[in-house]
């Protein structure tokens, strides 16, 4: 096979069919089901909820249409009065570092969304104070909404614990940040408290023209933890 033949078109290669079965009596063929053939755009839209949310600036937005569609995003869940080990503020602090590292891109082609797990308490006003407290820059929205909607949104983004008792504990849902390039349908996630520089790297690795990891071991050895 030469190069042109190879690259031309998709090889519709059936997986092996050895065995040479004597044809078995099989049920009569069903009516061919008519399956939908959505466009890429329709498929993308079907994957992400388009619920109404309110930003810390008091603006009403639609999750998919206004926040996700066509954008590169980082999404986490939190609540402002998450005390205990104070994971939420530290997470927010870590994302502040991420925002700094991403620099001018935040607000242009990269957006950060922090969605409250306690919308009843975290009104736009409370969120605004919180954002101001962290000196959050534009391009990062803190979001609240109807509690059932947010609950559905959380589940739809896979921020769920399979143990129902643990699932009721909001502190189980604040550990991961999701990042995605929506137009390319590339989605992944990592712990919110990963090194901020690492989070920025993971995002860049996903981007078609982003920076790539070195194929050599890292020059800066970490402490042996084992």
């Amino acid at each position: 096979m030469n190069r042109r033949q190879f690259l031309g078109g998709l090889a519709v290669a059936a997986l092996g069919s050895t065995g040479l079965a004597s044809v078995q009596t099989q049920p009569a063929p069903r009516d061919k089901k008519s399956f939908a053939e959505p466009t890429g755009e329709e498929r993308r839209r079907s994957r992400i909820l388009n619920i109404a949310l309110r930003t810390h600036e008091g603006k009403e937005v639609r999750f998919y249409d206004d926040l996700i569609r066509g954008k590169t995003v980082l999404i986490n869940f939190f609540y402002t009065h998450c005390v205990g080990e104070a994971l939420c503020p530290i997470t927010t602090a870590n994302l502040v570092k991420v925002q700094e590292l991403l620099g001018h891109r935040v607000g242009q082609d990269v957006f950060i969304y922090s969605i409250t797990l306690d919308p009843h308490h975290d009104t736009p006003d409370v969120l605004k104070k919180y954002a101001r407290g962290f000196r959050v820059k534009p391009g990062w929205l803190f979001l609240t909404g109807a509690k059932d909607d947010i609950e559905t949104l959380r589940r739809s983004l896979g921020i769920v614990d399979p143990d129902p008792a643990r699932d009721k504990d909001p502190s189980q849902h604040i550990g991961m940040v999701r990042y995605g390039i929506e137009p390319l349908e590339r989605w992944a996630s990592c712990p919110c408290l990963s090194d901020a520089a690492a989070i920025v790297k993971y995002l860049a690795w996903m981007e078609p023209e982003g920076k790539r990891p070195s194929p050599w071991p890292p020059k800066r050895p970490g402490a042996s933890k084992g």
Partner: protein
Amino acid sequence: MKIEIVTSGRKKKEKQAERYMQEMRDIVKAGLNRRELLRMGLVMGGAGAAALQGLRNFKPYWAHADGGVGFHSPPNTPFVDPLPIPFTMQPVTLNPAPTKGPNPVSSAVTGFRETARPDHQRWEQFLPVEMYESVEKPVEHDFYPDIDGVPPSTIWTYVEASTGRAGPLWIRSRYGKPVVHRVHNALPPDNGGFGINQTSTHLHGGHVASESDGGPTHFYDANLFKDYHYPNVRAGFASNVPESTLNGRTVPGDVFETQGFLWFHDHRFDFTSQNVYKGLVGFYTLFSDDIHLDTGDETSGLRLPSGEFDIPMVFADKTFDPSTGKLFFDLFNLDGVLGDKYSVNGKIQPYLEVKRRKYRFRLLDGGPSRVYEFFLSTGQSFIQIANDGNLSPRPVFRRSVRIGVAERIDVIVDFSDATVGDRIYLQNRLEQLDGRGPTGKIVAPADLVEFRVVGDAVDDSVVPVTLLDLPDRNVPIAKRREWKFDRSNGAWVVNGAFFDPDVISAFPKQNTAEIWTFTSGGGWYHPIHFHLEEFQILSRDGAAPPVFEVGRKDVVGIGENAIGNDNIGETRVFLQFRDFLGDYPTHCHNTVHEDHAMMFRFEVVP
């Protein structure tokens, strides 16, 4: 009076809140992490907690657990299509010829250049004898039989460059014949819903140099290729066992490290589950005719069932979108993905015509998250001969065999007592409800493969009394390390730390042995996979491992229902770091967990 109190209280709270925010800003400025903060007691006490507590009492409302959205794939008619027998790849002459460093010349097949990579280690010592070439690309594939009227799905898989045959492909290689596998990445940026067109092909189980290991951060982009160098030499050859002898033949390395059943799959960081689910899976077997052992010939060596009677099967549960009929992957799942359709070598519930004789089935759990416990519908036993593709000391007769993701078990199944016309089923009976792992319950069977007994065939194979002894563990232990796999606020941690691509967590010295302890909290099952060498399990919660785990493995299940219904909190393994240098990962092979950073890296240093 009352109003005053409230007012002053509010002021106080606001003041506290401001102090708290200042504290947080200082934290941001100082770049402290959570662990340091906790050590300093900065956050737990102090004004912050009180201030935020004071804003309003927290009242959780998480009362309704709706169980999420469940998909039901379009129905399938079972046992219509035959089990696909993987194509054996044919050796080719690579053009340009492979080189020690990245190839300066573009490929004559695709026009792609080779990706940046370190030079091949031990290249001159193991110049390639057999070369294979494949291209990762989209292929239209039918998981369902025609009769179901479900349209094909676009999968991404390895396609043999010289023939255009699609996966799962099968490289059958031999000890003493080093291989180069050239893998072109011709995947498109449009993923059709999931996956990424960047890949790193890991030879799972391979004793290979770091640059050919296919580690998660060693991926490269579309329109590039990479040459993976597999020396096909036994571990120990450059260290404590330069050569050894079995059946009158002397070969480099330790004959007791001889391997058999490996597989290759994509390992791109964060995207392994998506890309493997999409079809980037292949088989790699190693025959050891050089020492008259596992020869691939029923008339020599161990005389195991061979040729057309030696069949690898990769089990992968899938979900298909009921509205489109297309392969579906839940991108927004952190716990583990379960499918409602069982595919085997890419077909849902296929059949296999068998003769009244012995077969060798090499069973591989291709994930992403399901654990299987196989039974035969006749109640007859499997004769297990290998664990994770490595011959066991002796055959073990087992009524059922369980494998977690990436684990392999080779079994001999003897159909000689069957009658022509019999239908015998390979079944899974292990209950699993979610990504946490199996419940441990044995439930009503799901039939995965239908064996149709069709006639007789000569059977020169035997079930040997003994197979292959274990390598000597009587070597000095250079270091002991402990690795605790845990979950913290919905995120995976190893020894309390999150994965960091710039951090190497251990620096074992080349040609030394260590003992590692893997531990896990309850509630979850994790198949832990170690790259570079096969290890031996020393203990399971302090007790000797069960007989079927006495062997050489590269995956060990820990945690909930790791063995039967037992939660195995602690597993000790003996492992060695021989012959090669460089970085390798150790990680959970529930590929969804692995994609959420349940991983650490070590680097073998001189």
